[in-house]
């Protein structure tokens, strides 16, 4: 796909897509959306990049190592946040009762641990989408 128009447009669009994805992740607890939707958007931005610039270049942007770390890291964030409640003595994933600050309704920093979990999920989903796509391409290239 050596089309300049596509390349330029992609370069232009990708930041917006990514910003929108991050927005959806961060606003997961105050509006429709959340970690999965936002993460999917984030992932899609890189998939778009791969489609346009080719797998090799995309690998430079987001390497194997990074994907591994991001994938495990996402779950780790989730599990760690869940475990905090256990250390306090409450059931796994307990939110406000475990001492997370509630904040004021409607603000970004509210609803206790939910934003943190959403970030974890977002990272995980985004990296998984990219990894799956890259792996499929690798299979074909082999």
């Amino acid at each position, binding site marked *: 796909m050596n089309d300049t128009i596509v390349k330029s447009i992609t370069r232009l669009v990708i930041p917006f897509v990514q910003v929108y994805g991050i927005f959806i992740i961060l606003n997961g607890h105050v509006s429709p959306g959340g970690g999965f939707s936002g993460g999917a958007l984030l992932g899609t931005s890189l998939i778009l990049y791969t489609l346009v610039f080719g797998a090799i270049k995309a690998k430079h942007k987001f390497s194997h190592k990074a994907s*591994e770390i991001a*994938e*495990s890291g996402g*779950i*780790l964030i989730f*599990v760690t946040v*869940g*475990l905090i*409640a*256990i250390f306090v003595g*409450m*059931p*796994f*994933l*307990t*939110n406000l*009762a*475990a001492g997370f600050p509630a904040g004021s309704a409607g603000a970004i920093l509210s609803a206790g641990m939910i934003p943190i979990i959403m970030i974890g999920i977002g990272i995980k989903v985004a990296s998984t989408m990219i990894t799956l796509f890259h792996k499929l391409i690798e299979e074909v290239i082999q």
Partner: protein
Amino acid sequence: MISQLPIINLVALLLMAIMVPFIKKISFRATLWLGGILLIGVLVSSVFIFIHVANVGDIIYHFGDYESFLGIEFKVDPFASLFTLFVGTLAFIIYVYSSGDKTEGIESPEFSRYYVLYFLMLFAMFGILYSNDLFNTYVFIEIISLTSCAIISIKRKKEPYPAAFRYVLLNEIGSLSFLFGIAMLYMISGHLNIDLLANTIQSGWTTLPINIIFAIVFMTVGLSLKAAIFPFHIWLPDAHASAPSTSSAILSAVVVKIYILVLIKLILKVFGVELFASLGMDTVLLIFGGAGMIMGSIFAMTQKDLKRMLGYSSVSQIGYIVVGLALMSDLGLRSAFFHIISHGLTKAALFLSVGIVIYLKKSRSVKGFEGLGFQIPIAMTVFGIAAFSMIGIPLTSGFIAKWNLGIAVESASQYIFLGVIVISSLLNAMYYLPILFAAFLKDNPEHQEKVSIEKIPAAMLLPIVVLGLSILLIGIYPNLLMQLIDLVIARL
């Protein structure tokens, strides 16, 4: 604190799975040791949970401290804790074996992935047993299907791919049927929690009976498809045959049983026996089970590939479990539970000892067993014990399982199944005994008179010896297990 143990088990397994890629960079051996220690820890905590649950009462665990009707609920009753113990024990034994047998078809870069999948699968199995929420169960089921399919196709060889494809395809259809059933139940009650569903199922039966019929039929058939109950078994022999032996062992001994346990949970806890039987589903299961007992053995007889043969043998043994379940009585359930555990041990022993044969000979043919009894005496002895258990010779756990099933069948006045049990046992003998005879009674030109044990790693021999001894132990003192099963049934 003890009420937190189930969730700690789950989290530990999940964490192990995601940490394997990182730890392996330090040292692969360290990963193996860590995994082993973790499994021992999980096993010990399962024992504690069982003791606690048996003495004090069920552990009910609300995720995130939400109420039952809002959030996900775990309920650890004797049923769940006994079978997590069973899963954990077998998983540990097979894990030890797999740390010795690293060669069978898996390339070295895939080792760590194998263990990622292994721990994820364990995580999901524990989750299914603990979970008291239908949708949660569905998610765990999907995790099991994906990981087990991946474990099958992890070998970079030709034949696993079509087998794995068929396995995923049919499993996915099964899962979707199950999900469809959940949707039907959710429609009438608005709950996913098993206890809450059970309360509303009677009123649902009066208002929307067609929904419940669809739910029962789709969920039963979906789970049958995944559990390889006889006419739905067609994916099983290929899938189990082409997997590495450790995977075949865990798939055949444990994973298939998990689906049956889910079915048991559904029938007993959600629908209720009377409702299930009033639709004639017990008859359907009875026919499936009986046909499976015979046909599985008949197909197994003609196989040239040893692991395919064992796969068909699993189909036949699942028939025994299903018949026990389909009798819908306490005695039948007792025999089904006993057979689940007995067959788990036996089939694991068979697959693992066959794994040693493959390790030695690099061939899966039924024909190549001449003189093996002298080359690998321990493995073949365990194979012999397990084969006798399959046939139902006294002193092995298989005999007790058949005896219990026989009594259960009589109490339901299904006398014809006595004949079916006998014919099936005889057919079992027809394909297991020739292998044993070849191993111990035929001379191999290349076989040396000297017994040579040292070629096999101890990590592979120890697990199968433990399995063989436990088959004998349960065969001689079945009450050790029967007491636990009676407790489970009393509290179910």
